[in-house]
């Protein structure tokens, strides 16, 4: 009887431990790889607990100073890993693009969603359905026409190209999500304010927006993360470090078989910081939003 009780309370605990290890192991492994010299990473079998710790890989990415013992692998290797030094400007590009996408979503999305939720006008249903249905096109199928549009607009390799494309992908979700949310906000207060001579825009900003902060936070978090994480489009419409985002730089650094993984781990670790911090900070909204994305309509 006692054995069974232990099994009952111990099994979920043990499985939880396994799960935590499964989820976290890759993060830990990258963190460990980033603080070891290259020689240590090439041990067979690897040292599970590192013995030599170094910040050389970080120093290389931040200052360009070559890690000790690096030269012996040859000059070609040095040139290849040089690409990893683009990680910092790429992080800046990613942050600028993703923040702009989140802001554009908040501004355009809030205005449109409030109108869809409150006002009746000719073509409203049609336009709403059109915005939602636009998501039906598979991303790969539109890659070339997107490239052509961006080229025609003269925006190749500029922030604006990515901001536009990511906005197109995220706005339908934002509009739909906020429309549903605004519909649940009782209209009585606004109606009173409108009678008192408030304009629609004032009613939205002063009455509805303050109570919708959780939904706005979720919408902003989602569009930020979509934009930050996007890989294929960032790959197609950017070509130099002027606009290349961090997933593109890290991917193009890492797929080179000659690259030093110590240095790649640094760029991987740096890339993960913003979305992980974001996911932690917005955890509740993100979880609720995740559920809403896939289950409501």
């Amino acid at each position, binding site marked *: 009887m006692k054995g069974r009780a232990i099994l009952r309370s111990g099994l*979920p605990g043990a*499985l*939880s431990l396994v*799960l*935590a290890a499964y*989820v*976290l192991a*890759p993060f830990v*492994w*990258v963190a460990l*790889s980033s603080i070891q010299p290259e020689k240590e990473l090439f*041990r*067979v*079998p*690897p040292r599970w607990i590192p013995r030599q710790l170094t910040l050389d890989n970080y120093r290389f990415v931040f200052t360009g100073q070559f890690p000790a013992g690096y030269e012996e692998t040859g000059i070609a290797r040095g040139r290849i890993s040089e690409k990893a030094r683009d990680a910092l400007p790429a992080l800046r590009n990613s942050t600028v693009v993703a923040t702009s996408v989140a802001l554009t979503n908040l501004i*355009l999305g809030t*205005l*449109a969603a409030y*109108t869809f939720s409150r*006002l009746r006008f*000719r073509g*409203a249903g049609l*336009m709403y359905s059109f915005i939602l249905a636009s998501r*039906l*096109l*598979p991303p790969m*199928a*539109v*890659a*070339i*026409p*997107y490239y*052509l549009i961006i080229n025609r607009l003269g925006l190749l390799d500029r922030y604006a190209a990515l901001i*536009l*494309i990511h906005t*197109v992908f995220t706005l*339908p979700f934002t*509009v739909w999500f906020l429309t549903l949310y605004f519909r649940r906000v009782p209209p009585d207060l606004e109606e009173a304010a*409108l*009678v008192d001579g408030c304009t629609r*825009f004032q009613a939205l900003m002063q009455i509805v927006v303050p109570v919708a902060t959780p939904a706005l936070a979720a919408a902003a978090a989602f569009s930020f*993360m979509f934009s930050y994480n996007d*890989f*294929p489009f960032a790959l197609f419409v950017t070509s130099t470090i002027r606009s290349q985002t961090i*997933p593109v730089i*890290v*991917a193009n650094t*890492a797929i080179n078989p000659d690259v030093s*993984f110590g240095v*790649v781990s640094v760029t991987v670790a740096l*890339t993960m910081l913003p*979305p*992980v911090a974001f*996911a932690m900070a917005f955890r509740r909204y993100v*979880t609720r939003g*995740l*559920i809403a994305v*896939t*289950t409501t*309509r």
Partner: protein
Amino acid sequence: MRDPSSRRPRYGEARYAYGTVLPVVLIVALFTIYPFFYALLTSFREVVLYKPFSQPFVGLKNYLDVVRSEFFAASWRHTLTFVAGAVPLTTVLGFGIAHLLNARTRLAPLLNVTILLPWAIPTVISGIIWAWIFNSSYGAFNGLLYSLGLIDSYVPWLSRPRSALACVLFAHIWKEVPLTSILYLAALQAIPEELYDAARVDGAGTLAAVSRITVPLVLPTTLIIVVYETMVGIVTFDLLYVMTGGGPAGATSLISYYLYNSMFVAFNFGQGAALAVLLALVLVAFIMLYLRLLRSEEIYAT
């Protein structure tokens, strides 16, 4: 009914309405209608890189070439294998993990935070990490098997057709399971506790309670997860780009990667567009099914 006099006159309100909605409609339209017709028209023409000024109309030739191609059949076969592994695993693991997230263990609060992490980071980044772990010369996976005495020498997991697909699948599941777990968690929390109490009083064991109460009640969530994960599996691209590059010998060239290849590597835009249209049709069929399920779930919930 609201008293009509309490509303502001309609004049000006329509202008406000169009002013706020049209920017969104126009941006979305530019990036929807033009690409749609472009892809459709290109798919009926021969558009190849080495003949930029001659794009003759060829009817259904691109479609026939694509469908008859050996690579097309092979990439669908790989895609189906991948989806057949990914969908059951993400569903079953998600169901199990949701129970752990819901359990009153000491680790549950920590798990609820960490489970989001694989989902939060860019897919290419998770692909890079897993490719490093499965690395043939220095990877931690080989190291682990070697240390445990399960292999005598390191195995090039990502260079063998079968194991390469399995490695990508493993990384894919790691990335997708957070979402399915959270969806199942929400479904579990919606089940009233009294149902389980009643079952316990009637002498039902844990297994009976799970199979008779939990499984039927989370069925709508299961349907949604199955369809959603099928779509995600079909459009998998990022992981393949960084983990295997579609190789070895095309063994991990799933349909989206094949499309990328014919457009951006072979530069056969006509065939690429035909392939894109075919893929779009398959996806639209799935999304219609998906929306239908969501709608029926709404009815189910109320």
